């Protein structure tokens, strides 16, 4: 069947088998290998992307269901060579080790912050419950999400601009 979707700002029209999962379509057909598969039961969240602005586990959705949708993956977050504040916060707070869960974790964190721009630790921990990480023990991930929340506040915008330019290490 024929599906059309906009992924990271580019429109794609493809023939897909009805059983094709969105994540398979993204990885195998569109080359969006930044989004990864970590399990087969929808528990790990490694494949999380945004579909029309909301986080979705792309292993739990058929490509056909995404027909007509706008999708953002980890590869579409940085703009004009500048990292998204959540990406930057993950780097600055050492919120990743092997990095396999990171794309899904970042996409989920952005969704979480859209719902609650100033989450406390408990809210962050519960908001990330569907994304598993085996390396970090989550502490620095929680730290990064709260740091990103601070950076994303309108008042912090100017500071962020300066920090992003200066903090290149």
């Amino acid at each position, binding site marked *: 069947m024929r599906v059309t979707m906009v992924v990271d700002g580019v429109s794609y029209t493809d023939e897909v088998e009805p059983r094709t999962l969105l994540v398979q379509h993204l990885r195998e057909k569109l080359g969006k290998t930044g989004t990864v598969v970590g399990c087969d*039961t929808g*528990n*790990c969240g490694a494949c999380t992307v945004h579909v029309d602005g909301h986080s979705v586990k792309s292993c739990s959705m058929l490509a056909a269901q995404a027909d007509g949708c706008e999708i953002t993956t*980890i*590869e579409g977050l940085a703009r004009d060579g500048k990292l998204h504040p959540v990406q930057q916060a993950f*780097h600055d707070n050492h919120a990743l080790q092997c990095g396999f869960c990171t794309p899904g974790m970042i996409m989920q964190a952005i969704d979480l912050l859209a719902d609650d721009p100033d989450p406390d630790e408990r809210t*962050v921990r519960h908001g990330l*419950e569907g994304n*598993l990480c085996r*390396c970090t023990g989550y502490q620095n991930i929680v730290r990064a999400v709260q740091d990103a929340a601070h950076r994303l506040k309108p008042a912090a915008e100017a500071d962020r601009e300066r920090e992003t330019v200066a903090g290149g290490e």
Partner: protein
Amino acid sequence: MTATVEPEVGKSRRRKEDARLITGRTRWTDNIALPGMLHMAILRSPAAHARIAAIDTSAAKGMSGVLAVVTGADLAEEQGSLPCAWAITPDMKNPPHPALAVDTVHYAGEAVAVVVARSSAEAQDALEAIDVDYDDLPVVLDMEAAIADDAPLVHESLGTNKNALWVFDSAEAGTGGSVDEAIAAGEVVIERKYRQQRLIPAFMEPRSVLCDPTGEQFTLWSATQIPHILRLMLALTLGVPEHKIRVIAPDVGGGFGGKLQVTPEELLVFLLARRLGKPVKYTETRSEAMATAHHGRDQIQRLTLSARRDGTITGLKVDLLADMGAYLSLVTPGIPILGAFMYNAIYKIPAYRFSCTNVFTNKVMTDAYRGAGRPEATFAIERLMDELAAELELDPMEVRERNWIRHEEFPFTTVCGLTYDSGNYEAATDKAKELFDYDGLRREQLERRERGDAVQLGVGISTFTEMCGLAPSRVLGSLSYGAGGWEHAAIRMLPSGKVEVVTGSSPHGQGHETAWSQIVADQLGVPFEDVEVLHGDTQSSHKGMDTYGSRSLTVGAIAVVKAADKVIAKARRIAAHMLECGEDDLDFAGGRFTVRGTDKGAGIGDIALAVFAAHDLPDGVEPSLDSEATFDPENFSFPHGTHLCATEVDTETGRVTIRKYVCVDDVGKVVNPLIVEGQVHGGLAQGIAQALFEEAVHDENGTLTTGTFADYLLPSAADLPSFVTDRTETPSTTNPLGVKGVGEAGTIASTPAVVNAIVDAVRHLGVDDIEMPCTPFRVWSAIHGRTADTSGGQAGGGLGSIQGGLQ
């Protein structure tokens, strides 16, 4: 270094690796696609023990896009036997271990047939058309039952389910007294039996392997911790000349020992690619990873501790049963032996005996999982210290203090014959107690007990050490391990002054690119950004022993330091020539040779360029600064620390909540505090998960019922607390950086801290043990005097046996 340049070592550098990982610009093995690439899928046995009566592949062979359907009988002549590198005793039993079962399957999930097709979907479809008839054989699951006289056998041909018996006795070794005499004379004797449940490493990236046979060499990409060992083992197992194989470990998504393996899938992909002359890729599903990637732990420990009434330990006897699973994998039989020298831990125990019986069962193999033998040992001794304290009505910290090695007693040779080079248990403990508010929490505990609160408070201690930095080759030799424990490094000085560092270590999340850059920046006086670290490809990094056992920094990075020393030695001779002085007149600091007492000098980059041009070099000097070094450590590394855990236990529901977790680790000198802290966090999470959540459970047929992340309870962010971590710093005296390993420390230390805290919370209710994982049901049962079902079976959440879980 000049006074104006801040050393890189010790700085919390943000990681170089992150740039690609946070943007999705990654090279996981499954991301790699080659022209004409085919896909392999594996049919796995649903039975744990059965004879394969017949396999009908005819329907599958005719399906769309299917290039090959292969059974064990088809590969029997060429697949060899998967390697085990550690024959722990001369008479160890090691059954043939085929990549593809030929006539009998020995665990559920064992590969029975493979399909290679144009697409992954077509390969999966064809699996369903293969028809296998199994004749069931008796299933052996329980270790104690397996060694009974009339037990059915996992491998008929062996005549026994015992793999080996391995013994260390301090009286026989001359390193201590007789434990039987100590126990006979003991004023207090504590006997306990603990169970180390089976765990699943559960790295986040499922394993994937791709073999390209189209070049002059076979090129194999694999999600492995051990590209160098894998290359040699492929050559030895399959009879392929080693120089015709190139192995690449690209981005690898975690391992924790779980990717320290030579897998059936790696062999099968290689064989099928060779047979078809086309690239073949296989990526496992999570369900396949859970059921067939090797598991960890799975031991039964019988322990006897003798002491005087003042709390001084006089002897320790350890009898283990260790579950090998159905076959021996790369290091399977040696895992419990890695714990043998750690039961005495930080304590001065005068008499010690360790014996371990390795047992075959119809389950997937066990092998390395973070800590590998040492978490089990640490759990046993740290639980026993608490039991001894309870018996003597002493504070458990006081009992530890009475027995531990005091800081002025280092270097200290233990009852196992190991020499601990350095440590300061008092300092780490003092700091931890202060951060924890030990006395305050003890007061609160007492108040709650007196009030009879429904939620009781417990305090758990783990004053651990471990041996890591595997390993001195001579020690490995004495333990009959099949290889050495050295590591290799090379440094290439490029004409523009930039530096390439080649390391035999093989990172999969640890941050070696960043840490090695920091080390080399200091050694050569070059900017951090000017260093590129190459690893994980046997073509660029031709020699190595890879990454496991907290060895990369203490062995691998020391090789890097040694290589840098050689670069500087070569450069010194050329600098003397350029500056027209004697070599002895030169100082090297901050990347620059200067002639003592003058302002004349030359930078290492200038010298690299001069060497590249080679127009004017001293006679007999080769035009190269490039250097390599292979470092063999003289001793293990002995990090230590004090971990304190406060748990709240709801006596009405059995629910355990970690109220506070404080650890002060001493890992010697620290290259990057941020990375070290991250290693500790992750280690704690895995150790706490053993205490509270995780267990690989099998049903009576040998089917893994915790085969998904819905059933195998990897902790989420909501299940863990924030940790308070700190450090003391007692440099190692056995390597030039003063560093100790950190990768496994958190996992080794934390499990007993948590269980001690839980038992401590409810000991006054008559509880002196709760089996792991300490689920609410087990805790509640212990409090209410009921016996929880210890055969497992309570961890399953319902998805473990879904159809298709094993395809």
